[in-house]
């Protein structure tokens, strides 16, 4: 605990009325409290000067406390005369104290400035524990991101918040269409067959964590994360592995993200209005070595020549359908308006917010053949939130949190799609459109999300030391998808339409109770609880083909219609016990057990149990620890969690199909496995965290080792037995290990300048240990889950074409060679320097998921007014196939292949080396040749904000801030494809990755103004 930056300045104008009121109140009550005084003041964020609403201000020795109101003000009344230690606590912030001398009838003004702390031993954590626990008690790593960290940063989604700020987390942007979802993973992959996406809770209610309907035409999907308004978020807690997620049971092996939104606090309505205006745009596309200035025809689609290309470039001829601007790209406009209010009385409070925004994409969609402006790529969204809390009794708190979001996204066909814009533009004249690519944009693709999440949190504290917490809620998402090729569309001349409508509903019922007592001089907190989750999905997917004529369509406008229905329910639930024993408030031992049932378990399987154990030792509290070092906590944790099989994987079933022109038939569906159970992840984690140099240096380190046993592997059931297809069996073993470290340094801390610098590094190296009877499992685009192989001379001595190595290079014959999850394996040239035809051998190159991530960030605040915030992030250790480069090379239109193409055209093919031909000769190039290390570093965001002096703003405004923000500004990489982060399948929850004609992530600039009143 530290005393930091406590200002004893004279009362500020803004709080004078409060002081006056306090004085009056004190005077009125003087006969009853002749020996007491009051303490009042404002709790502010030390970095940006903004008030902290809801901070707990107390005098522990007097058991006296109050919550700062909605503008950070507090008033402690009836404080006995004397000197007291006043303490301020708030989740995610460091605890500060101040010695205050109170005189009888006196009113003391005591302001506090608290700093957001990544590591605060007294800070409360509620994720992964049975109830709220102080960080000092927790044996596993926890990442907390507080709103003050991202309030000044350019964030428009939860993904933006987490990117570069989640140690051990990987957030890949995937694509450059507005509305495209990101991919989230924590500590890489630990499941071969199922989602590696973490579970997500919003104010205690489990919400959908995976992407919604995937557009086969845009090759993107929205992510429900993005429906949450970042401005509503108070903090995010992240726990990463089975050691931490045990209490969440089956399905939690990928980690847990818990989002807490802002709550109301007592006080008159405090309003906040934020207005954002900005732009999105994209720079030059394609390899830097390209001498053609058109950016693969995307930046310039009307190129008629320059000094290098007299009369134009035959590979990228001018496109007659090119927009009037001469480019398929434009600057997209963004704007949003966010209004919120919070306030309340002693026993009731509220937080209400509303946001509307629209974001324009970077495609210039131009005009259709009738001269009508085509819909632009982009999205429009609005959100409403109401969080209400009341205390019907002294010992009971009831909170209702509700939000509704609506989002409408218009896509452009993109990615791995014959009708994709980039695919046809990048291929120049060798495309599907006869190089009139604008025809593609006549296709309409629309995605509409409606989302409603509502939960009730009930906290009952019947007596000191006992607390019951009940969360109940619903997360309801409706996703509608429309795709239409109009009548007369060039590629499907009679046109067609698809509609896909899904409703996802998750119900949460979560109870936890805890009892704190003392046993033999040890503190004890015994907790128990249980959860029930019900996951329901329903929807219909319809197709209408062959329209009779033009006009607006519905499905039945098609001469041929077809419909499908989705309807499934999964119920999971379990109960847990947890005991936390503490000794001297410095050593804590936690033991727990979770027992689960699940719809997807085989009928003979029964329940699954997951144990956990952890310790935490605040060694710096020991007498022998060097004074002045600061704080150091050692910790270790062990725990298990799991992943459930798919809904119907355990049962033998047949599916209904049609045959003989519409007659009913059946086909084998699933073989079934009555003993099927969840795969089980067990994790060991050990590390330490602390701070030193007067808390100016905070640090954290952990090593983790995960092993997933009984891994669910899709085992092919001897095809010649007839029941073809895969059946999940609990046979595999996968391991994953890594280090995570971060250091945050407060270089300067004064009223004039606060300068923080932070850096983090996380590794996650997955390895396939066993696949049962299988040698490998293809997971798409030459990405394999590969079982260990015995090293051979051939493997060991294979040619290293590009000097980047390959798996097994230099291995000792006979030893086992292990592969990451998943690995890219394909043909690589073995005689690159020979002037001959290439000889190939299959080589596995490396993981297609980043094996390490690192971030560098800095925040500099001058005079608590001008703040510069910079976040950079790098990823590496992974390989990415550039389907774009490979397919273009096959068509002799890849810029770096111009020389080889010319040689072939000149009849000099036989003078080329095998390496040159393997890359660029259309007749022999292979996918593996265009698979490269995809390490990158991106400048994720830069933000400059200025809080205006009070005298500059009208009197009724409490504060006003201007911000200039930039996002995704620079990329550093040696990867030769279009972008090392692009992914052909949007945020699809799959193992493989490859880049395939996807629009790369764009950059954004936003000017933002916020006023509080």
């Amino acid at each position, binding site marked *: 605990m530290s005393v930091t930056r406590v200002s004893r300045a004279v009362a500020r104008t803004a709080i004078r009325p409060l002081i006056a009121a306090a004085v009056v109140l004190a005077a009125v009550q003087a006969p009853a409290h002749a020996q007491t005084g009051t303490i009042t003041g404002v709790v502010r964020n030390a970095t940006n000067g903004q008030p902290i609403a809801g901070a707990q201000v107390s005098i522990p020795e007097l058991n006296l406390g109050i919550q700062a109101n909605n503008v950070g003000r507090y008033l402690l009344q009836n404080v006995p005369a004397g000197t007291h230690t006043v303490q301020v606590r708030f989740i995610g912030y460091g605890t500060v104290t101040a010695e205050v001398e109170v005189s009888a009838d006196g009113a003391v003004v005591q302001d506090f400035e608290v700093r957001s702390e990544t590591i605060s031993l007294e800070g409360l954590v509620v994720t992964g524990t049975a109830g709220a626990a102080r960080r000092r008690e927790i044996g596993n790593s926890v990442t907390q991101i507080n709103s003050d960290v991202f309030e000044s940063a350019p964030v428009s989604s939860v993904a933006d918040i987490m990117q570069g700020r989640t140690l051990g987390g990987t957030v890949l942007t995937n694509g450059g269409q507005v509305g495209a979802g990101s991919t989230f993973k924590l500590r890489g992959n630990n499941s071969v067959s199922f989602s590696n996406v973490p579970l997500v809770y919003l104010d205690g209610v489990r919400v959908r964590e995976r992407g919604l309907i995937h557009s086969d035409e845009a090759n993107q999907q929205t992510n429900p994360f993005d429906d949450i308004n970042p401005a509503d978020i108070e903090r995010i807690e992240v726990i990463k592995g089975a050691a931490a997620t045990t209490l969440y049971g089956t399905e939690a092996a990928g980690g847990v993200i818990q989002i807490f939104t802002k709550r109301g606090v007592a006080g008159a309505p405090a309003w906040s209005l934020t207005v954002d205006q900005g732009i999105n745009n994209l720079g030059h596309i394609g390899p830097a070595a390209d001498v053609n200035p058109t950016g693969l025809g995307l930046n310039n689609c009307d190129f008629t020549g320059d000094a290098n290309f007299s009369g134009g470039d035959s590979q990228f001829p001018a496109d007659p359908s090119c927009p009037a601007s001469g480019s398929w790209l434009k600057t997209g406009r963004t704007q949003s308006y966010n209004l919120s209010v919070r306030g309340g009385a002693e026993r009731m409070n509220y937080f209400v917010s509303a946001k509307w925004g629209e974001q324009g994409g970077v495609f210039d969609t131009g005009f259709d053949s009738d001269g009508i402006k085509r819909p632009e790529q982009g999205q429009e969204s609005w959100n409403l939130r109401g969080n209400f809390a009341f205390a019907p009794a002294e010992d009971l708190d009831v909170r209702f949190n509700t939000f509704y979001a609506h989002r409408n996204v218009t896509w452009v066909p993109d990615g791995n799609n*014959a009708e994709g814009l980039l695919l046809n533009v990048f291929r120049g004249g*060798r495309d*599907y*459109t*006869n190089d009139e690519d604008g025809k593609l944009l006549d296709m309409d693709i629309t995605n509409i999300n409606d989302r409603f999440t509502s939960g009730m949190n009930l906290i009952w504290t019947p007596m000191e030391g006992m607390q*019951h917490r009940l969360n109940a809620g619903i997360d309801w998402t409706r996703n509608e998808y429309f795709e239409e090729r109009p009548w007369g569309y060039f590629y*499907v001349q009679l046109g067609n339409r698809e509609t896909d409508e899904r409703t996802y509903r998750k119900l949460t019922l979560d*109870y936890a109770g805890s009892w704190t007592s003392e046993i033999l001089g040890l503190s004890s907190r015994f907790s*128990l*609880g249980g959860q*029930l989750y019900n996951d329901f999905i329903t929807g219909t997917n319809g197709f209408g083909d062959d329209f009779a004529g033009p006009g607006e369509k519905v499905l039945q406008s098609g001469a*041929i219609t077809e419909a499908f229905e989705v309807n499934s*329910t999964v*119920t999971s*639930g379990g*109960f847990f016990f947890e005991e936390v024993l503490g000794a001297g408030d410095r050593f804590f031992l936690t033991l727990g057990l979770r*027992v689960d*049932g699940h*719809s*997807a*378990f085989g009928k003979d399987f029964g329940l699954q149990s997951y144990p956990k154990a952890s310790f935490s030792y605040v060694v710096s509290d020991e007498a022998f620890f060097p004074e002045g070092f600061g704080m150091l906590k050692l910790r270790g944790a062990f725990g298990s969690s799991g992943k459930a099989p798919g*809904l*119907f994987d355990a*049962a033998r*079933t*047949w*599916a*209904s*199909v*049609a*045959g*003989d*022109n519409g*007659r009913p*038939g*059946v*086909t*084998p569906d699933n*073989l*079934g*496995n009555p*003993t099927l159970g969840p795969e089980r992840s067990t994790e060991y984690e050990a590390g330490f965290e602390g701070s030193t140099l007067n808390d100016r240096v905070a640090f954290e380190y952990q090593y983790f080792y995960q092993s997933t046993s009984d891994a669910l592997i899709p*085992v*092919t*059931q*001897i*095809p*010649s*037995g*007839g*029941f*073809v297809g895969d*059946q999940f*069996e609990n046979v595999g073993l996968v391991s994953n290990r890594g280090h995570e470290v971060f250091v945050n340094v407060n270089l300067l801390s004064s009223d004039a300048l606060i300068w923080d610098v932070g850096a983090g590094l996380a590794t996650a190296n997955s390895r396939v240990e066993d696949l049962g009877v299988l040698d490998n499992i293809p997971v798409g*685009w030459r990405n394999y889950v590969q079982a260990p192989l015995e090293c051979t001379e051939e493997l060991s001595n294979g040619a290293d074409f590009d000097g980047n190595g390959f798996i097994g290079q230099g291995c000792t014959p006979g030893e086992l060679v292990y592969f990451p999850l998943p690995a890219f394996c394909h043909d690589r040239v073995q005689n690159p320097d020979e002037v001959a*035809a290439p000889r190939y051998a299959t080589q596995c190159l490396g993981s297609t998921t980043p094996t390490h991530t690192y971030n560098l960030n800095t925040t500099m605040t001058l005079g608590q007014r001008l703040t510069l915030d910079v976040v950079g992030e790098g990823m590496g250790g992974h390989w990415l196939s550039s389907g774009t480069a490979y397919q273009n090379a*096959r*068509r002799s239109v890849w810029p770096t292949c111009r020389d080889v193409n010319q040689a072939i055209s000149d009849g000099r093919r036989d003078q080329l080396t095998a390496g040159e031909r393997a890359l660029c000769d259309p*007749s022999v190039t292979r*996918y593996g040749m265009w698979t490269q290390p995809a390490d990158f570093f991106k400048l994720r965001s830069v933000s400059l904000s200025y809080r205006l002096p009070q005298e500059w703003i009208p009197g009724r405004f409490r504060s006003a801030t201007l911000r200039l923000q930039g996002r995704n500004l620079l990329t550093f990489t040696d990867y030769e494809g279009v972008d090392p982060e692009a992914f052909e399948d949007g945020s699809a929850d799959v193992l493989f990755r490859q880049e395939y004609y996807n629009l790369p992530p764009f950059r954004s600039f936003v000017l933002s103004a916020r006023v509080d009143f």
Partner: protein
Amino acid sequence: MKTIKNRFFMLGALVGAFAVTGCDEGLFDVKNPGRILDEDLNTAAGVASLVTGMSSDFSASYDNLAFTTAILSDEIVGSGSYFSTGRYRRGLFDSEDANGFWAGVQRARWVAEAGLLRMKEIEGYQFDGNIQTARAYLFAGLANRWFGENFCKTVFSAPYTEEVPGPGGEIDTGVEMDREAAFERAVPLLEAAIQHGGAAGATDIVNAARGGLAQVYVGLGDATNALANASMVPTDFVFAAAYSSNSGREESIIWNETHGRHEISAWMTLAGTYGAGDPRTPWTDCSDEASNCPSGNGADGQTIHYRQEKYPTRDDDIPLVKGTEMRLIEAEAALNNGDLAGAMAKINEARGHYGLDALESDGTIGSITGGEGGGAHPTSMSGWDILDRERHLTLWLEGRRLWDMQRWDHPHLNGGGVVYEATVDRRVTCDVLGGPRHIGMPIALDECQVNENIDTQTRCFSK
């Protein structure tokens, strides 16, 4: 205090009991609409659906086989951008490529064979002389014909049954067998189809089964039985795998890959040159603006798209047994017997069915010489070259050409044609088998991985 504490623990016990009881009382039951439990198929009223499923499973995979073997055999050129068709175009086809095709034919075979076992046991179902029984035998027989014609080796394992539930259960795992085993397996199945079809008065099924028998006897090298069965099938008879626009699963992939996409083209093939204007090999030159095609080129951006029009809609069925093929089987038997005139008569009978002029040979029986453009010699008028060309064109895009090339050890297998790129020196082969050239699809990687009877070192390979 003690009371409160006790209540607290009682509450915990209740939570636990609730969860445990929930498991027993069905709280976690799977909601499973849309799927049919295995035992629910054991009803007489469900037999029609079972047999329609056999037809559906046959069609659902056969179109993909016809599409792919067309590329592998140079019936047509792969002009697309699929990763796989790019390989097939170069003659590259390995055990991993075979997975889907192996699974397709095994499923088609198994649903029919296992379905027949089930149908025999269904109470209230009149098995003998029932048209559904005849159809089931026909699909079982034709699936085995498909297996033998297109795969270098065959494997038959005992089927998974209710008693042998697969994972954890032992089945009688099959061993590698020569492709003739599939033909031999097909014979009694097709004979049973004739028996039950005849009893049911189903002439079409009887004709289809006789045609199927003729095909498998050709595969077995039994000219006598092939001729005997072929001669009983009328020239205008066609039995086809059914396709329909009724549902996506029923649509023909060949239509989709040529009309919906531009993945194969008749350009530079026998059909695209010699076959121009031939009603058996219709195509449209999409590079002609008047064609109104979406694009003049294939999906690879360079091959001119000669769009096949044999299957111009999603609904067009793929023939499995045709009377015109029977005439060509008769012609082949005649050539084998040195009867050139008899052979030409049968060839011209088949041509006449399509309204084509009669051909006149150069008077020699000759041998198959092959041609650069697409396998069969385009102009030679020797007996065998004419037969080669006529089978090529008559059975175009029906999934039969690869088999003809195998059984004739066709010269075109040497590679080096216009369509196959010059760097490829071998056609799709099962190289590891050694000895005489084996043309066809290998044992699938999936089978190699899980069937311990398969010698993966010598029977499974990658390219």
